[in-house]
């Protein structure tokens, strides 16, 4: 997993309410559409089964290892150490991300903060810097960085926007009449925030916390660089030494259990209360609280945060670029890496969008227990770390499809699986804006069903599909873990080449790759930021 804002949390936010009314209105005519949905359903089931490959792999490997071996491999000091590291990292980083994310969102959206439009973007900007580039920048600044607290520093600075973006989107759309009502019922500003605003942020906070947690479990590069051991880095070390050892597989199964526990915890804490606005009619813009004497400290705090999260890594990337001079821009290495990154990014984005379409279509047009179970499988898959997906695909392709081992096909398939949720979220909201009624109107005007589908539904979904594809592209550009495992021999991407150079402590040589990744990511991050604002109200 890389920075995947639109994964599980946001996924559900758009999942409810946007779909056209289910039920009687959505049945096919006898001759017109019955075949298409069935074919779609078959495709969607195949995709769902495919998406369960990583989980299936982990289960199969655990079973194959045998009970006694598994127990001896899982219940040992090394696993306990990794578990402690992981739990401490999460216990410190997740609350810090929540405080920074919600606090920043509140300052930007609901106070008289000057320059709030600038800060709104600046607080989302760290997402354009891959965590392992952030880590590289900080190691350049403080070479002695290592261990838990360094891990916390890098994690919080890289991932607090995962809470900030949904929180800001929710706050900007919060109905001010709720707060006005609370005030008229005798609550002071702080009480209003605690008893009315904060509960409204619950979905954004639990979803954001889940994303941060999953990223912490999945991140490899950032922690490997500061020599902080987590399950993912340990699995990678095992893989590099023994390729497909039982020890590595058991670590992977513990990691998967942790991911699933996070999913359950998030579902539990999400609650069942209703957060949508009740009633209809226009909504006024939320009011802003005057900051008064706190204005200067607030500005300074935000400045410090952005300097630490964006300024430090970018300063050192640029510094290495300058120090490296012209020799680090070796075209024979840089150009192939850039081209292959672009090719994989585009291929992966297109493939992911195509694969997501049948699932999104079924979910919006024919909601049922069937489509919900498809979504559940997708939800579980979206929590699988890149290292597990990589391991699963390596093993499955060697075992069952040796012809495909170490080919571009397997790598693109892994990208599809890792980033399907991003494309799904976009496509779902796009399809919700192309209701079935419009397609029917076209049919009543004499256009055959396929033509109506293309001219109306596909046309109206195109912008959302493009947006989703762009987000997948962003994710692929910055993907390191699965790419390291699955890239064909001789294939380099910006991320893998950056990693190879910085692992050899050639920090200057790695700098151009880091710069290119950030430059490619920046517009996509902006898009993600914009999209989150639209999706929040649904």
């Amino acid at each position, binding site marked *: 997993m890389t920075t995947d804002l639109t994964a599980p949390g946001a996924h559900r936010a758009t999942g409810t309410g946007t779909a056209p009314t289910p039920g009687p209105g959505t049945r096919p*005519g006898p001759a017109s559409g019955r075949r298409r949905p069935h074919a779609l359903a078959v495709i969607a089931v195949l995709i769902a089964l495919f998406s369960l490959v990583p989980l299936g792999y982990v289960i199969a490997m655990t079973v194959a290892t045998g009970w006694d071996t598994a127990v001896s491999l899982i219940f040992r000091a090394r696993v306990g150490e990794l578990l402690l590291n992981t739990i401490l990292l999460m216990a410190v980083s997740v609350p810090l991300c929540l405080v920074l994310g919600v606090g920043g969102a509140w300052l930007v959206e609901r106070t008289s903060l000057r320059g709030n439009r600038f800060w709104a973007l600046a607080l989302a900007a760290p997402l354009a810097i891959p965590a392992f580039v952030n880590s590289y920048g900080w190691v350049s600044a403080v070479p002695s960085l290592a261990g838990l607290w360094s891990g916390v520093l890098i994690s919080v600075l890289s991932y607090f926007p995962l809470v900030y973006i949904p929180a800001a989107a929710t706050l900007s759309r919060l109905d001010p009449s709720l707060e006005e009502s609370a005030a008229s019922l005798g609550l002071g500003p702080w009480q209003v925030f605690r008893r009315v605003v904060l509960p409204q942020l619950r979905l954004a906070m639990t979803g954001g916390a889940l994303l941060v947690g999953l990223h912490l479990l999945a991140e490899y590069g950032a922690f490997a660089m500061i020599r902080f051991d987590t399950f993912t880095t340990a699995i990678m070390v095992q893989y590099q030494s023994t390729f497909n050892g039982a020890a590595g597989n058991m670590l992977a199964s513990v990691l998967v259990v942790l991911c699933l526990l996070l999913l359950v915890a998030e579902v539990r804490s999400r609650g069942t209360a209703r957060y949508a606005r009740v009633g209809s009619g226009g909504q006024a813009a939320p009011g802003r609280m005057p900051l008064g004497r706190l204005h200067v400290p607030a500005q300074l705090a935000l400045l410090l945060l952005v300097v630490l999260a964006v300024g430090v890594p970018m300063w050192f990337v640029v510094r290495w670029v300058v120090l490296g001079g012209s020799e680090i821009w070796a075209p024979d290495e840089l150009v192939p890496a850039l081209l292959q990154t672009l090719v994989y990014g585009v291929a992966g984005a297109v493939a992911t969008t195509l694969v997501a379409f049948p699932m999104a279509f079924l979910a919006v047009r024919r909601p049922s227990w069937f489509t919900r179970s498809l979504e559940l499988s997708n939800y579980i898959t979206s929590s699988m770390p890149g290292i597990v997906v990589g391991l699963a695909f390596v093993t499955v392709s060697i075992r069952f499809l040796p012809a495909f081992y170490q080919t571009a096909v397997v790598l693109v398939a892994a990208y599809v699986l890792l980033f399907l949720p991003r494309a799904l979220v976009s496509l779902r909201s796009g399809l919700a804006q192309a209701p079935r*009624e419009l397609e029917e109107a076209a*049919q009543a005007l004499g256009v055959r069903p396929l033509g109506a589908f293309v001219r109306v539904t596909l046309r109206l979904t195109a912008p959302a599909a493009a947006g989703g594809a762009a987000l997948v592209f962003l994710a692929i550009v910055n993907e390191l873990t699965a790419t390291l495992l699955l890239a064909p021999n001789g294939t380099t991407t910006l991320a893998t080449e950056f990693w190879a150079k910085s692992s050899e402590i050639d920090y200057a040589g790695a700098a151009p790759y880091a710069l290119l990744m950030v430059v490619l990511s920046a517009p996509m991050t902006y898009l993600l930021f914009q999209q989150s604002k639209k999706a929040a109200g649904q």
Partner: protein
Amino acid sequence: MTTTPPSTSSHPPVDYHDPSARGRLEVKGLTKSFGPQQVLRGVTLSVDPGSTTAIVGPSGSGKTTLLRLIAGFEGADAGSVTLSGRALAGIDAWVPAHHRDVGYVAQDGALFPHLTVGQNIAFGIDASDLAGGRKAVRARVAELLEMVSLDGALAARRPHEISGGQQQRVALARALAREPELMLLDESFSALDAGLRVATRRTVAKVLHDAGITTVLVTHDQAEALSFADQVAVMRDGLLAQVDSPLEVYTRPVDRATAEFLGDAVMLEAWVDGDTATCSLGSVPLAATTLRGRVQLMLRPEQIRVDDDGPIRGVVVDTDYFGPESTVRLELTSSREPGCETSALAREGEIISIRHSNAFIAARGTELRLRIEGEAIAFPATATGAPA
């Protein structure tokens, strides 16, 4: 069934009883279930060429499903749909929506948001059918806009830039572009606010009438159904409870639920003997009925008039003022004219509602004298209609 042939239509005379006349819609025994829920339970309806039928019923009665089956968006489980003598749906017959000569206007108009108004209207026009290509299409669009009383300049606008009433008229123009034999209006005016709704409805009715297009309107608004249509079909629980002229369904409803759905009704217990019924209002003339003995009597509130010489007395309990009219609730007092027979049914203190146009006299506590105009309708005493 009554028929009102379009008097001002310029179309050649049609034989309204010819089952294959252009524009005649025949629906026979349609049934449709969604899972365990049976939405249509055998609907049969006949619509004369060029006439207007309103299908009216509470939400969930199946009226929209019926319209969707006629449009061809869905297939029925059983039954048939025939338009102009051509089987559209039935045993061994299925014509998909895009091959039916049926226009459809959805509740919100369903204009394509990515196209301009002009492109929306031209959507169903096949440019190769028109001599003159693009120019002819543009001319046709202008003609259609004019037909629905819209400014030609609107053609360049986007759907979200025009008002709701304009959107509905554009949707109509778009559907008219293909010169359909049948026009289906699915709650087409419901999303508009009150004043606009009436104006838009009038325009649409006139356009369709002038074009001689058979029209079926689905609505939950009984006033809209009564004012729009030549024929009103009252739908309830997947069946047509009554199909008749607006006057007939309003004044001679077949059962209590229909009566209460179509308007306010004063329901009274009564005893029928011959042509009159005896109730708390005294003797009331009765529409022809075979019922005898204990019945439920239905009067429209406007049938109970205030008259200084009226035989019935009541004290005003309260009033609802609507501007031109008030609904006045009265508590009946037993003291009738001397000589008027009292019956066991004349319960003192019964409260009835009437309509009255003079709000001033209806102050609380005022005693009013009333008389009944027209005939009451008798329903079996065990009638199980839900209160309106």
